[in-house]
């Protein structure tokens, strides 16, 4: 009972022969479950929110009022202050993460002692819960009883009210955000720097380049994909930031550290669901309006490896 194999016939399934270009719909079936989940949990609520933003919504009833919510959002001083704060916050955190991330990335890809340990130390804040970090730093930053001001007092500096001084509150939260997020930026930069082929370094060294020229002409341009990734991600994150600000200051003192997200949350807390949905739509449009041109600009400047 010798089992002979049939000669291999061209095993083209019948159904693809009818399709233009011969593309099989088979992969589409793999995509379908994810598409359903994405559609139901993201697309449908987003579209629904565009409608509810135009209503006065009490969660029990909704009444169509046109663009009144948007007008109100832009008129109220408390709400407009949130806008300014958001852009300031996003710019500061994004800029600091890029600069520090690049510096740390350079440091942690060079031959230094304890490199593995330092990488772990730099990255671990990213893994910790944001709310936990917020509450911890709120305690540390207490002007009279906190550890930070106590440490500063030991060396003779009278520490300011980090979270209670109206001019410092947003800055303090931004600093904590940078501390928390720089690990991720460093990681991305490390990946970018390490992927630069060794030939560039050798060629530059042969041409007599010092370390600053090496950095400016080889490392920085060739790690541009990493830079654009870090800028985009941290800018989006900064514009949408909520949990750290909420757990540290709740937008206080007064309205001085409010950002769009915390303003939206406060409207939601007060039961103005239509108004807070309008705020969400505004945030959505603002993030897209900033990030889309920015990514295109950054992509254009990318250097071909």
């Amino acid at each position, binding site marked *: 009972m010798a089992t002979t194999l049939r000669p291999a016939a061209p095993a083209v399934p019948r159904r693809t022969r009818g399709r233009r270009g011969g593309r099989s719909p088979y992969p589409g079936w793999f995509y379908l479950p994810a598409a359903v989940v994405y559609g139901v949990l993201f697309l449908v609520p987003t579209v629904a929110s565009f409608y509810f933003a135009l209503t006065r919504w009490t969660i029990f009833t909704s009444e169509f009022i046109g663009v009144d919510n948007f007008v109100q959002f832009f008129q109220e001083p408390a709400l407009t202050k949130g806008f300014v704060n958001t852009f300031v916050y996003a710019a500061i955190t994004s800029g600091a993460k890029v600069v520090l991330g690049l510096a740390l990335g350079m440091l942690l890809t060079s031959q230094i002692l304890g490199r593995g340990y330092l990488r772990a130390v730099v990255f671990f804040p990213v893994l910790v819960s944001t709310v936990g970090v917020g509450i911890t730093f709120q305690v540390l930053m207490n002007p009279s009883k906190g550890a930070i001001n106590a440490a500063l007092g030991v060396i003779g500096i009278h520490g300011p009210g980090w979270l209670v001084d109206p001019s410092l509150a947003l800055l303090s939260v931004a600093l904590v955000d940078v501390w928390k997020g720089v690990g991720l930026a460093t990681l991305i930069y490390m990946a970018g720097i390490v992927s630069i082929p060794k030939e560039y370094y050798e060629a530059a060294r042969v041409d007599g380049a010092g370390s600053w020229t090496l950095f400016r002409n080889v490392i920085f341009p060739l790690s541009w994909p990493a830079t654009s990734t870090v800028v985009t991600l941290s800018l989006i994150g900064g514009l949408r930031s909520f949990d750290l600000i909420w757990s540290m200051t709740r937008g206080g003192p007064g309205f001085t550290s409010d950002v769009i997200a915390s303003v939206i949350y*406060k409207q939601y807390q007060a039961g103005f669901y239509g108004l807070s949905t309008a705020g969400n739509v505004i945030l959505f449009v603002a993030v897209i309006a900033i990030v889309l041109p920015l990514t295109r600009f950054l992509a254009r400047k990318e250097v071909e490896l």
Partner: protein
Amino acid sequence: MALRPTRTWTLKGLAVLVLAPFALAACSAGSLGSSDASGSAGGTTITWLTGTDEAAQASAKAVVDAFQKANPDVTVKLDARPAGADGDNLVKTRLQTGTMPDVFDYNSGSLFQQIAPAKNLTPLTGKPLEKAVQESFTPQVTSGKDVYGVPYGTAFGGGVMYNRAVFAKLGLQVPKTWAEFMAASEKIKAAGIAPVIQTYQDTWTSQLFVLGDFHNIAAANPQWAEQYTGNKAKYATDPNAIKGFQHLQDVHDAGYENSDFASIKLEDGMRELAAGTGAMYPILSANVSTLQSVAPDKLGDIGFFALPGDDAATNGLTAWYPNALYVPATTKGDKLAAAEKLLAFVASPAGCDALTSAAAPTGPYLIDGCDLPADVPQVTKDVQAYFDSGAQSPALEFLSPVKGPNLEQITVEIGSGIRSAADGAGLYDEDVKKQAQQLGLSGW
């Protein structure tokens, strides 16, 4: 076909044996929130949603223990929700989705109006359990023609807790006008004590100067609340109404606040008051429970007086009504009967006694037959005195559903010197517009 060597078989078998129990454990659904299984011995079990803080849970537990002794066929389980705006949202969402436990307690007055009582709650009009509830309270839990709740807890006042020992040492009397208040503060400051304690980490405490002043506004213009609801009176333009905001600014400008006002919380404020490093603390008298927990031995040193206006003759207390117990419309059958038994217990002297055993009363119970015992804290005695002499009137939130959500931030800004009183009052008037429109009030 020779049998495979036993080694792989036993390894696989061992793996199956070890993992099977885990699979079985995953099969049980566990408890899904508030269970509604019938209690043991054929009785009914109901769930009561109350505050998550220690004081709220302790009070509820005391009531439940006493209730279950008197009604052995009913078991009451306690569920918790946060206080403040988070709790408001939770209550509204659970009512909307029909997942509210069988009984819950919540504010009365304007917050009660906001949870759509006609749609979400079971009316209790005419039932025997409502008989003992005093007339003054009933409008606070009435919507349309129906009554929906019974009072849970004591009424309390919004005014100033003060350290009687400090006042005695400096020879000061309780101020009956604002001028006297500022003069007293000046003397206290000269003695090296912080005259006015503020605790802006708990932002809601910053509102007392404004909200506790309402008695004085109403004394000057009894129709003010009605005009306010109809958008005819405003804080910024009414010379009487803006005084609350102005007083807050004056206190800050004169440097009468404690140095750490921006970074401390309610408990720290109570500690400073009890220790005598701060002399006066504008707060709700209900927070005597916080005082009791942080400085129980100093209870006798702390008294209470109403925020003074300009006229000593109309000096009186701005009073807050207690929360109420409500029954959602989704509670039916046996559970409804059990819930009504619980409400009837709370609205009776036995219920008042149970609450008194858990926490010192902060004012009068608004239930017939519930008298205060003689050993209540001095704060409560002072509050009771205002009720007894009739020198009290309801806070604005019980006369008008209009209250903006941003008041506490605005008052923090005024008290911190970030914004002027006139500016803040105007801002608040803008803020309440949102609330009024949300409620669909006419004239806005």
